[in-house]
C-alpha cells in the first residue's frame, strides 16, 4: 500500500485526539431540592416525631444536597396506620380504576423523566446517560406494565378474584433508587395493597419527588407512604405488627436478619439479595459482543448491581485474546462527572461503599491475584474507583466469593462446559449468570444446569417489566417483574 501523499499539514488542525468537550447536563434540571425533608404520610409531607436528621450528599462532589428525617418508630407507626386506613377503599376500588391511577403515574414519570434522571444522577452518582436511557424508561415501563394487571388479576393464574395482602413494608437499596421503588410500588398497588416504603439513606431524593407525583396523579391519601431513614427505620418498619407483607432488596446479611425477624409471624416475605454472577465465555463466542457484554455486566452502574457479572469465567483457549480485547475496551471507558452525557462510569455511591471496594480489592492483591486498571484520571473530590480487572483468580479468593458491589471483575478460567457449570454454581449466591457462545444447544444445556434466577445468553443485564427477576439460594426468594411478580402481593 503506497502511503498517501498528503502531508499532515494539510489536515485540519487538531489535537492528537478527538477528545470530547464537556457535555454537562444542567443540575438545575433536577428541579428544586429542599434544604430539608420530612416523611410523606397520608398524602402529606410531615415532620418526623424525632429530631434526628440525616444528610444526603452528591457522591461526585461530596456536597450536601439536603437533610432528611431519620424515621422513628413513631413515624413508622404513623405511616403504617395511614396505609392501613387507606387499604380498605383502595383494595375495594375496581381494578380498572386502580389501573388508571397507575397509568397516570406512568405518564407523569415520562413527562418528568429528565428532572428525575438528573435528580437521580446527583443523589446517586450514576451517569446521566444511564438514568436517562435506562433507569427512567424502566421506571415508567414498570408502572405501565403493572397498571395493566390491576384489572386483569382474574387471568393471572392465581384463581378467581385474588385478594391483596394488606399493608406492604418495602425497603429498597441505593443502587437504582427510583427503579427499585417502581419494582416495589407498582405491583403492590396494582394488586390492591397500600405501602410504606423506605428508600436508602444515601438516596432518598427521588422517592420524595415521587411522592409529589402521587399527588399530581390524585392518588388517594395513604396509599403510598414514604418514610426515610437508615437501617434502624427499616428494622422498625419490617418489625411493625400491622404490616402484612415485607419486601426487601439489599444485602444478603440484612435479608437474613429480616427473615429471622419475621419467623413465626404471618407476614409474607420476598427478598432480592446479593449475587456473584458468573459470566461464562466459550471459545466460539461472538468476541466483540462478548467484550461489550462483559463490560456492561460489571461496569454498568459502577458495578453497583446485585446481578453484576462479577466473575468472568473464560474458556482457557481464548483467555489471552479475550483479555487483550477486554483491556483495550476498558481503556475507552470514561470515568468522571456523572452529569456529563459522555460519562460511562460515575461516582461510587458513598464513602462507606468505596471503603468496602478498596478493602476487598486490597485483599485480592494480598491473596495473589494480578490487578489491572486502565490509566484514567479521577476527580479530586468525590468517591471514585477505577474500573479494575483481576486475573489469576481462583475460587478460593475472597474476590471470587464475596460480593464487591463495585467496578471490579475477577477473571477465572475453565476448560469444559461441565467445569464452567461447576464453578458458576460454586457459590452461596444464585441470582444471575451469563453464557456466551454461538451454539444454541449449549446455551440451553448450560441454562438448564445453572442455579441462577436469571440466565442471560449472548447478552447481560437485561431487564423488562414483563420478565421475572430474582434469585436462587442466598440471593433471596420471590420474583419481581412479570406475571410472577404479582404473587408476592397477593394472598395466595
Amino acid at each position, binding site marked *: 500500500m503506497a502511503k498517501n501523499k498528503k502531508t499532515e499539514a*494539510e489536515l485540519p488542525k487538531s489535537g492528537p*485526539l478527538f477528545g*470530547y468537550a464537556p457535555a454537562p447536563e444542567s443540575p438545575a434540571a433536577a428541579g428544586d431540592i429542599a434544604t430539608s425533608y420530612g416523611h410523606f404520610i397520608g398524602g402529606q409531607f410531615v415532620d418526623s416525631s424525632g429530631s434526628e436528621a440525616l444528610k444526603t450528599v452528591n457522591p461526585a462532589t461530596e456536597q450536601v444536597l439536603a437533610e432528611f428525617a431519620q424515621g422513628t418508630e413513631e413515624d413508622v407507626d404513623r405511616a403504617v396506620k395511614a396505609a392501613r386506613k387507606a387499604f380498605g377503599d383502595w383494595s375495594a376500588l375496581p381494578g380498572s380504576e386502580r389501573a388508571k391511577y397507575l397509568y397516570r403515574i406512568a405518564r407523569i414519570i415520562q413527562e418528568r423523566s429528565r428532572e428525575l434522571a438528573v435528580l437521580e444522577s446527583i443523589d446517586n452518582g450514576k451517569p446521566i446517560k444511564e438514568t436517562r436511557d435506562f433507569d427512567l424508561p424502566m421506571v415508567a415501563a414498570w408502572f405501565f406494565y403493572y397498571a395493566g394487571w390491576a384489572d386483569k388479576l382474574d387471568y393471572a393464574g392465581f384463581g378467581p378474584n385474588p385478594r391483596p395482602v394488606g399493608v406492604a413494608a418495602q425497603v429498597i437499596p441505593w443502587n437504582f433508587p427510583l427503579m427499585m421503588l417502581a419494582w416495589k410500588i407498582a405491583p403492590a398497588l396494582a394488586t390492591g395493597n397500600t405501602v410504606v416504603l423506605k428508600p436508602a439513606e444515601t438516596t432518598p431524593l427521588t422517592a420524595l419527588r415521587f411522592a409529589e407525583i402521587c399527588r399530581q396523579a390524585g392518588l388517594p391519601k395513604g396509599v403510598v407512604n414514604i418514610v426515610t431513614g437508615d437501617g434502624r427505620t427499616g428494622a422498625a418498619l419490617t418489625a411493625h405488627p400491622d404490616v402484612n407483607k415485607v419486601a426487601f432488596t439489599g444485602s444478603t446479611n440484612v435479608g437474613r436478619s429480616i427473615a429471622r425477624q419475621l419467623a413465626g409471624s404471618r407476614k409474607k416475605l420476598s427478598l432480592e439479595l446479593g449475587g456473584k454472577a458468573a459470566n461464562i465465555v466459550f471459545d466460539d*463466542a*461472538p468476541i*466483540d459482543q462478548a467484550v*461489550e457484554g462483559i463490560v456492561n455486566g460489571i461496569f454498568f452502574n459502577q458495578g453497583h448491581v446485585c446481578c453484576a457479572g462479577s466473575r468472568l469465567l473464560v474458556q482457557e483457549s481464548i483467555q489471552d485474546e479475550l483479555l487483550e480485547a477486554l483491556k483495550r475496551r476498558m481503556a475507552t471507558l470514561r470515568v468522571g462527572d456523572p452529569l456529563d*452525557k459522555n460519562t460511562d462510569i460515575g461516582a461510587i455511591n458513598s464513602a462507606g461503599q468505596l471503603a468496602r471496594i478498596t478493602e476487598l480489592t486490597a485483599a485480592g492483591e494480598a491473596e495473589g491475584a494480578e490487578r489491572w486498571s486502565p490509566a484514567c484520571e479521577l476527580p479530586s473530590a468525590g468517591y471514585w474507583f477505577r474500573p479494575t480487572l483481576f486475573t489469576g483468580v481462583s475460587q478460593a479468593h475472597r474476590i471470587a466469593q464475596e460480593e464487591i458491589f463495585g467496578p471490579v471483575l475477577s477473571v477465572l478460567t475453565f476448560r469444559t462446559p461441565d467445569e464452567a457449570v461447576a464453578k458458576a454454581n460454586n457459590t452461596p449466591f444464585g441470582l444471575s449468570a451469563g453464557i456466551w457462545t454461538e451454539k444454541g444447544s449449549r446455551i440451553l444445556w448450560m441454562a438448564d444446569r445453572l442455579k441462577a434466577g436469571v440466565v442471560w445468553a449472548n447478552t447481560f443485564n437485561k431487564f423488562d417489566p414483563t420478565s421475572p427477576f430474582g434469585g436462587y439460594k442466598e440471593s433471596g426468594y420471590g420474583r419481581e417483574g412479570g406475571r410472577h411478580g404479582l404473587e408476592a402481593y397477593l394472598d395466595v
Partner: protein
Amino acid sequence: MSTVAANAPGAAGGGLSDVAASEASLRRFLHGLPGVDAVGLEARAASLGTRSIKTTAKAFAIDLAISMIDLTTLEGADTVGKVRALCAKGKHPDPSDPSAPRVAAICVYPDMVATAKEALAGTGIQVASVATAFPAGRAALPVKLADTADAVAAGADEIDMVIDRGAFLSGRYLDVFNEITAVKQACVRPDGSSAHLKVIFETGELQTYDNVRRASWLAMLAGADFIKTSTGKVTVNATPPVTLLMLEAVRDFKAATGVQVGVKPAGGIKTTKDAMKYLVMVNETLGDDWLTPHWFRFGASSLLNDLLMQRQKLSTGRYSGPDYVTVD
C-alpha cells in the same frame, strides 16, 4: 507498509499466507472468524450514537468530516459541467469562509476522471473513480479490468471497485479474491506506482453481519487499501452497525498482519449528526491512527452542505439555512 507486495494472493503475512491457497482453505478461514451477534452489535453502535459532541469537539469533528468526504456524483446524467462544478465545490466548500477545509476526493465515473483531474490539478484533492461495472458489477472480468485500467490511465488516484456479490453469496470466495487481486494489478501505473484500491461490498446485498465480516477479511487479504460499505445505489447503504463491524475488522487485521486498511461508509450519511456518530465509532474503536482522511472517508454528497451549515452556526451562533450554502 508499501513493502508488502499486497497484489499477490496471501500477501498479508502474519501467518495468513496460505489462507487463499485454495477455495477450501479460504472458506475454512472465513467461516472460522468469530461470529457476530446482531443484537449486540447494533446495541453497541446505538450506544456510541448517544455520545454528545459539543463546542470545540464539534468544531474539530466538522472540519475533520469535511476533509474526509469523497464528494460524489454518480448519475447517468453527469456532464462535464456538473463534474467541474462539483470539483469547484470540493476545493472551496464554503465561498464565504476560506478556512473551511477542502474535501478528500471527488468521486466520479471513469469517463469523468480526466475532467475532474484537470479541474483539481494542484489542489491535492484526489480523484476517485468507480470501476468494475459499477454498481452491479455484472460484467466479465476483462471488461472490469479494462474499466479499471481506463480510469487509472485517465489519472484516477483511487479506484472504487465492487465485488461480485453473486459469487460471494454462492460461496465462491476464491473467485471474489482473485478478482480483487486482478483489479489491484490493473491499478498499477506504468511508473510502478498504484492507484489506491477501495473495495465495495454492497453490504445491503450481503445482508448478514457474518457476511460483512467475511467480506472484509477477504478483501483485506486480497490487498484492499480501503473497504467500503456501499455503492449508494441500493435501498440499504451504510449503517452504523455495519461500519462498526468493518472498523473492528480493520483493527483485527492490523493486529494480525501489521497492515492498516481504511474504511469508507457510503450512502445515506446526510447530516452532521450522522457524521459525528461515525467519527465517534472510529475514535472509540480505532483511535487516532484512523482519524485522518488517509484512513477514513465518507462517501457522500448532501452531507457536505449540512456540515457547512453547522459550521456556520458554530461561528455565527445563528442557525443557517440551505440558501446560505451553494448548490453544485
